[in-house]
């Protein structure tokens, strides 16, 4: 019999607002994404010098993962290779690609070039948390909750991983949105059943 999987936490960052488990935890209507993201970093008193060298996509996904995993997640329950990160977005790394391309007209910047791949945000989350399990970055026009449910459930039900950070992280110029879900095999107080409907409900609220 298949075990049931649960969303044990969620975090949404978009339009000047941060929500944790569907509750607004921070708001700042600063128009510029980089300035807004820095205000989130400061408000949550995060101390991670690597943050400053990240591109906006990595900053967005990394901040959401920090807020997602704080308080209720004890990674000691899992081995590093038992935790996966599966993300998707619409614009790949185009936000940073445009910035990198500008530098090629003078001197190409290696520090910007490394962020011209969408999966770098997965790498940043893995480095911070020592997650070493399954990963994949998918590109889709819209958040495909059904596909995420099927793909992540398959990994969990086949015991390829025991916990997963999954969801959406997309940024292009002034538009940004991330919704991350922590999925585990155990039910917590706040848990909702891991399903496409459950994810779509949380995704659509912001």
């Amino acid at each position, binding site marked *: 019999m298949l075990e049931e999987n649960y969303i044990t936490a969620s975090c949404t960052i978009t339009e000047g607002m941060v929500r944790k488990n569907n509750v607004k935890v921070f708001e700042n209507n600063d128009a510029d994404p980089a300035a807004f993201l820095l205000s989130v970093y400061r408000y949550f008193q995060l101390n991670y010098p690597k943050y400053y060298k990240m591109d906006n996509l990595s900053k967005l996904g990394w901040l959401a993962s920090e807020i997602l995993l704080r308080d209720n997640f004890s990674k000691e329950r899992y081995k590093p290779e038992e935790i996966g990160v599966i993300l998707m977005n*619409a614009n790949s790394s185009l936000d940073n690609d445009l910035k990198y391309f500008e530098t090629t007209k003078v001197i190409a910047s290696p520090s910007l070039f490394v962020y011209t791949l*969408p999966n770098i945000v997965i790498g940043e989350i893995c480095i911070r948390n020592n997650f070493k399990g399954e990963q*994949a970055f998918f590109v889709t026009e819209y958040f495909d909750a059904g596909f995420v449910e099927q793909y992540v459930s398959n990994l969990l039900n086949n015991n390829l991983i025991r916990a997963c950070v999954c969801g959406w992280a997309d940024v292009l110029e002034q538009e940004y949105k991330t919704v991350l879900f922590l999925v585990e095999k155990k039910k917590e107080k706040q848990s909702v059943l891991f399903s496409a409907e459950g994810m779509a409900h949380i995704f659509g609220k912001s």
Partner: protein
Amino acid sequence: MSSLKENNEPDVFVVADNILSPLGKTTAQNFSKLKQQVSAVKQYHHPNISAQPFYASLFGSDEGFLKIDPHRYTKFEQLLIASIADGLQDSGIMVSDKKTVLVISSTKGNISLLENEAMSEILKERIALPASAKLISDYFGFVNPPIIISNACISGVLAITIGMRLLRAGQFENAVIAGADVISKFIFSGFESFQALSPQICKPFDRLRDGLNLGEGAATIILSTNKKYSQHVKVKGGAVSNDANHISGPSRTGKELAGAIKQAMQDAAVTSTDIDFISAHGTATVYNDEMEANAFFLTDLQSTPVNSLKAYYGHTLGAAGLIESIISVQSMKENLVLPTLGFELKGVTQPLNVCNNLLQGDFKICLKTASGFGGCNGAVVFGKD
């Protein structure tokens, strides 16, 4: 070893494939060139890519990939269409079948459009991978929405692993998995800024290796669980891991690639003694090759013949894992393991059996590995038993 999996998941067969590279337009043409140790890597003077002469494997600028093109597809899209069309030919796979899914693998897709066209909202939408995927899907008439993977240099290996999983889970019966990347100033300048490019044909695993060559190419591999293909080579297992160490440098220990290899072998129900040869990532950068040799040592594969195809094709990015997997499948069919062009003297710390002659034998099971930026590693096992 029994091919029956405990959970009764179906076997996944390789139905057909294609490689479209500067060496040839079919898998057969490509394999024939490789047997003759012909490299597509040569010196170019292309000021629109780099002010200095450089080594790479590129298609000719006048090369046509499609006979008729009323839609003005980009080069990236033309490559994918031509590769998929050849792969599908005579395969018996119906693209309009609800049981067939298209999976596309690319790192940078249409990014070269930035270099020649004025910035606009329309251009940004045109660069987005879903736009290309939709055009390609519509060209053939796939009915399911395409799945797009963009996961750095493991994209191709990951796409095969994902295709295998979707088929095993019964979500689809057939998967058409295609990958491509085009080399332009955007990509070239980035690797150059990293000082990752070799000023000659690259030398994987060699003492004098000094960086990679970039390459253009496309490839398609078609998978199915339909038992009518049961005489074909199988995708027996696959796995992915992350180094959790550095975004642009590989793990120093190779432990995480080793973890992916172990998991892929476990998934395939084989052990290291069953692996007849390995197609490594072997980019010919100092750190990648050292890390891979460590990983093969940690998985007890140090005496298994290993090759790298990077001196034939360069690093074809989102196509690399597919091209190199298809060559490995062809190697099993012809019982020939190809030599590692560019390799002379072992230049990695751990023992490693780098194949540098055309090897004949009875090759039943092989391992394909890849690693990339973001600390990602992928491994997939193919077998003909």
